[in-house]
């Protein structure tokens, strides 16, 4: 196996008392699209800014193709960063925005080369008709394409994208998401894509790194992260409706809730206290023994989400939309035992 393209070792960063990043280690392979998924304030942007060189880490090492770049200036790194707020140069046209990185000292591109590269990138991002427009006279989606264009004209060795689709409306987000994947595949340039959006993470990433409170909780393929999350926190990052997590203890061979209702059979070598993770699609509203009361019915068309009170335990159930459900209906939820995630509980809250 070759050296990874980008290798980050034990990166830490503090802002005063706040620990923004704590011993982050990850690697990125050539041509890989790595998604960093985490809630707001997890340290995602800080991590990107450190990789780009806009901030310096307190400790740790960053290497590109084996060469240490930890202390290099942003300009020396040949890494393109697309900012969440686009950061276009407001006093310039779209074309001038795209030209700007190509006119950097040391590039020595001919006028023809510059024109060709801009034409190519503009074509790729479908912004050719906008080239002579002032950067301030663009819609959000257009600005985002130009910002991405400014990154790709450079043909950098690494792309960093900081929640590039967050400021766009849902429809445009879907279109650009597909375009970004296509673009990354076409260019073959490795990309780190930061988002808090689970759909983007699942659909885009070759691998996903889940970041929470400055720590990487798990790195793996989207399937691994979805199917085998190593903690309730990771499990909650993916899937909609969010996964049901139920604190249980073992009692007469059964997992029992805090109110001593046995909800399913426990494995005999399982720990005595655990948190069960049950995705909403793995609970059926029928077939169980303990009754639950429907509190909220969320009709999604093809399917329905039921929020129910199951012996004091709130649960969400994803069911097909065929049968009409009503608030107050009594149901008997049953859990698919093969699809339950069990995390042994330690003293510390996971």
């Amino acid at each position, binding site marked *: 196996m070759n050296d990874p393209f980008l290798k980050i070792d034990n990166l830490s960063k503090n802002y005063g008392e706040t620990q923004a990043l704590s011993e982050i280690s990850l690697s990125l392979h050539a041509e890989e699209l790595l998604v960093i998924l985490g809630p707001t304030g997890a340290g995602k942007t800080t991590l990107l800014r450190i990789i*780009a*060189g*806009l901030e310096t880490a307190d400790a740790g090492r960053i290497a590109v193709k084996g060469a240490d770049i930890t202390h290099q*200036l*942003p*300009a020396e790194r040949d*890494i*393109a*960063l697309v*900012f969440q*707020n*686009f*950061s*276009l*140069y*407001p*006093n*310039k046209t779209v074309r001038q925005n795209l030209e*700007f*990185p190509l*006119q*950097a*000292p*040391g*590039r020595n591109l001919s006028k023809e080369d510059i024109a060709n590269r801009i034409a190519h990138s503009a074509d790729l991002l479908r912004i050719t008709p906008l080239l002579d427009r*002032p*950067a*301030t*006279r*663009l819609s959000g989606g257009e*600005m985002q394409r130009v910002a991405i264009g*400014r990154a790709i004209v*450079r043909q950098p060795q690494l792309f960093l994208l900081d929640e590039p689709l967050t400021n766009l409306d849902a429809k445009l987000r879907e279109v650009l998401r597909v375009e970004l994947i296509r673009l990354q595949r076409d260019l073959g340039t490795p990309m780190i894509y930061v988002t808090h959006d689970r759909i983007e993470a699942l659909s885009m990433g070759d691998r996903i790194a889940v970041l929470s409170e400055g720590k990487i909780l798990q790195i793996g393929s989207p399937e691994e992260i979805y199917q085998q999350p190593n903690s309730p926190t990771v499990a909650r990052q993916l899937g909609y409706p969010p996964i049901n997590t139920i604190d249980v203890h073992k009692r007469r061979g059964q997992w029992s809730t805090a109110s001593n209702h046995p909800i399913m059979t426990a494995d005999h070598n399982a720990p005595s206290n655990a948190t069960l993770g049950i995705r909403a699609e793995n609970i059926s509203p029928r077939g169980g023994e303990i009754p639950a009361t429907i509190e909220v019915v969320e009709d999604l068309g093809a399917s329905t989400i039921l929020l129910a009170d199951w012996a004091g335990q709130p649960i969400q159930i994803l069911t097909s939309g065929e049968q009409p459900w009503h608030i107050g209906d009594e149901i008997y939820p049953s859990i698919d035992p093969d699809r339950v995630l069990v995390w042994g509980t330690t003293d510390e809250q996971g």
Partner: protein
Amino acid sequence: MRVKDGVLKYGFVGPALIFLIAFNIFPLFYNIYLSFTDAELSGGIARLIGGRNYGVIFDDTRYGTALRTTGLFVILAVAIELLLGFALALALQKPFWGKPALTTILLVPMMLSPAVMGLYWNFILNGHYGVVNQALSAFGLFQPQWLTDPDLKLFSILIIDIWMWTPFMMLIALAGLNAIPNHLYEAAAIDRASRWTIFRRITLPLCSPLLFLAVLLRTTDALKQFDLVMAVTGPNDRATQTLSALLYQVMFRGYKIGLGSSYSIVILLIVIAIATIFIRYIASIQAKQGRETA
């Protein structure tokens, strides 16, 4: 309710309107009227004499000299103040220890009265006992007669004006620099722009509308230069007589109200013309850049 609202409306606007008419609009039109008369402070009934006063202006050699003096003063003062002020603002752009205190100290000259400053600088630049020449003599250097040498007098007033108003340029330039969002500098750093490129293609163009505004304000103000001239050399000195000083001489020393009014109208027209050019220019830049910064 509606009637009450109407009354209230005029009640609010009325006092300001009356004030404006009494102290701005009426004097302006009265001034225009006077400029077509032979009114004098020494008495007699003012008679309309048509445009004869305006004819006198262009025969008056003092007028041409004052126009040249004023022009030279305005161009040099505003240009040097702009350069120094902008340079100071750039130096103060990044935070460093003692920056707030230093900024405050640099702003002090702007806050003092020009007449008082003129008197102080009279002492500072005095050829015999002034602190500047004392210092020069301590080094055995030539001691210029700042306030009496006809070639130096205007230059001395220029120095005082620059000393007073460079902080103003600095203040506005600082506001312009601070309005440039930091992420643009970060984007430029990632785009591998050199410091000079960042300055020339981001800092300067984004700061320029405010700089032009500062130049406009300073230009119109410097065109009216009067107080420093009064305090340093007096209004009658041919070497430093600005348009306003000439106006003062005609109006309040010669008591020729009609003629003086026509001088003031001509100055007003010059100021309006220059201000209009500047304002159009600033508006065109702003239109080009868009109102928001992305």
